[in-house]
């Protein structure tokens, strides 16, 4: 190793190997790592940059700290992949501690499961203040690449289908002041495309954006607010009007016999959970619908 070269040390803290083999893949000549003046080293003493994959479990935690201390300051620590950032699907495991930034200070987070070698190289270049020419075809992601998830707030109805099916709980839906907020955590996402497949409104799309580099773990999010309707029964907030519209459209298209009940269904769907729980049988439901209709008539007059 020459003096000008910057050493990079890879520390595997209980990762699944996915990120590790991608770091090995950056050694392939086409990524031109030597142009950056970067060399992957086998001793922490020779390194200035530490790449952490995985967030650490009970046993590795102490050794990760020791490796960090063996690196000569000023050190740069890069957390590679969703596990190092938030432990992804493993977050609730009994043997898990961390994520990595609870054990050692982390400077840069690279999201992805795993990040493409292109993203790792680009992140290294960015940190070192250098530029790498991305002229060849392989730098661009293919059309079906599973990159950063993107939500269309004009289409989303905040129905919660994505939150329910997400294998890593990277989608959080919360409710406040008549608005439902859908929040995507890129650092927790496994980029598996389940949300895109289950979304009934085609609101979620996995884009081709692959370079997700953040200085702050908490900034790696995206959120959208969806307006809610007031419950006609008790005036608390219940459901988004677009969701009702979508359900009515589906019924109209598929079950033509129900067309005459559409108005009733629309009213019943507008009810909040508390009001729905009060309904115990068909008789009560009919009575409630009748009351609602009377209320609406009153409003008209």
């Amino acid at each position, binding site marked *: 190793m020459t003096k000008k070269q910057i050493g990079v040390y890879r*520390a*595997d*803290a*209980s*990762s*699944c*190997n*996915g*990120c*590790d*083999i*991608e770091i*090995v*893949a950056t*050694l*392939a*000549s*086409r990524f031109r790592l030597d142009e950056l003046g970067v060399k992957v080293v*086998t*001793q*922490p003493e020779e390194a200035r940059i530490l790449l952490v994959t*995985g967030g650490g*479990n009970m*046993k*590795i935690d102490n*050794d990760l700290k020791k*490796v960090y201390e063996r690196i000569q300051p000023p050190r740069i620590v890069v957390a590679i992949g969703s596990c190092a950032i938030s432990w*992804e*699907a*493993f977050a*609730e*495991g*009994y*043997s*898990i501690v961390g994520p990595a930034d609870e054990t050692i200070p982390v400077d840069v987070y690279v999201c992805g*499961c*795993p990040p*493409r*070698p292109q993203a790792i190289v680009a992140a290294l270049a960015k940190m070192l203040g250098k530029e790498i020419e991305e002229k060849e075809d*392989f730098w661009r*992601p*293919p059309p*079906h*690449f*599973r990159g950063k998830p993107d939500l269309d707030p004009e289409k989303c109805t905040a129905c919660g289908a994505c939150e329910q*099916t*997400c*294998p*890593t709980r990277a989608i959080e839906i919360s409710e406040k002041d008549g608005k439902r907020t859908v929040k995507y955590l890129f650092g927790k996402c*496994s*980029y*598996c*495309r*389940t949300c895109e*497949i289950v979304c009934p409104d085609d609101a979620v799309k*996995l884009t081709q954006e692959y370079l997700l580099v953040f200085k702050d773990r908490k900034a790696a999010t995206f959120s959208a607010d969806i307006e809610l309707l007031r419950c006609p029964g008790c005036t608390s907030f219940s459901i988004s009007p677009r969701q009702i519209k979508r359900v009515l459209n589906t019924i109209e298209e598929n079950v033509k016999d129900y067309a005459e009940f559409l108005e009733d269904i629309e009213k019943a769907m507008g009810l909040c959970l508390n009001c729905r729980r009060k309904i115990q049988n068909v008789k009560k439901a009919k009575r409630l619908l009748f009351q609602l209709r009377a209320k609406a008539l009153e409003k008209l007059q």
Partner: protein
Amino acid sequence: MVETVKIGPYHPALFEPQVFNVTVKDGKITNVDMELGYVHRSIEKLMTTKTYNQNVFLAERVCGICSAAHSTVYCETVEKVFDVQVHDRARYIRTVFFELERLESHYLILALLSHSLHEEEYFTKILSDRELLMDLFEHTTGNRVHYAVNKIGGVRVDLTPTTIQKMKKVTNKLRKLSNHILQAFGDNGAFTPKIKGKGILTKEKALVLGAVGPTLRGSRVKSDTRKDDPYAAYGDLSFEIPVGSDGDVYDRHLVRAKETIESINIIEQALDSLPEGPIQEEVGAPLETQALGRVEAPRGELIYFIKSDGTDVPERVKIRTPSFANNYSYTEIFLNQELTDFQLILESTDPCFSCTDRLTIVDQETGKKKLLLFSALDGRETK
């Protein structure tokens, strides 16, 4: 002079964190003790907290190099629990990705082998040609490592005529690479003199110690789950099982190199005879039953056991990974070898510790090991 050397958890010879306590007498290894747990991620427990569909992605993430193997065997086992028959086209697509992954895995270990033998020319050649394969994965599935191809009841990715053309182009190029690698295993090849006769595992010992995969086949045992208990579309395809002769480092790697050619044959056959039809089957509710599935992962036989209680969450998932079975052979292959050959011999079994790691409860004061009920792991211990 007897001394004990501690290798790990972070050591240049190890790809993953793990500790080996190696006893050395006069420069020769007399005993190897392994300390597991550095990559333990409580996966079996986590699987009982997520739904069957969510667990497909958790199974993929058991290991980054066997993600297609893990998700295939998981899905096939769950399909027994759900009593679903998968369409023919889906079975063939599963086979294609399974073999592509075997190629990727074997090329990686062969690249690491040439790196540790300081054959940098082979290292760069294999690594850069392997990128063809990775680009293919990215193009067809959207990710280079975790393919997310399998789902319960079929596959998520269909193969269009253009992707089939692309795959055939790549396999043609890889056939040249495999032949190039095989030259290095020839009589005067670059690898042969450096690895011949090292780390011998005899046929008898391999069977007694329960080795699997290329480690077993290197020792002259013709055993392959793809032939013995066909899954996916392997029953319809014809292929050979390469075996070694002496059971040394050379034979284990030679088996892998020969298997890459067989994998290319399987992929080309599967693409040529790809049946038409749907790729996904409707899935009902799980039955109250238990099922066992096994496949031949790149490292050997991989077994999943799933017990269902009729809910959407499995009651118990048990995973027996190939590297775990191969660990016992370490008691044999390191004996009377030079300490300098440690990395070479360890890599010859292609270990994957992220699959292997297990948990032991040890009382810190007395040092005694303790048995724990599975339900105790989340604090709801039952009698």
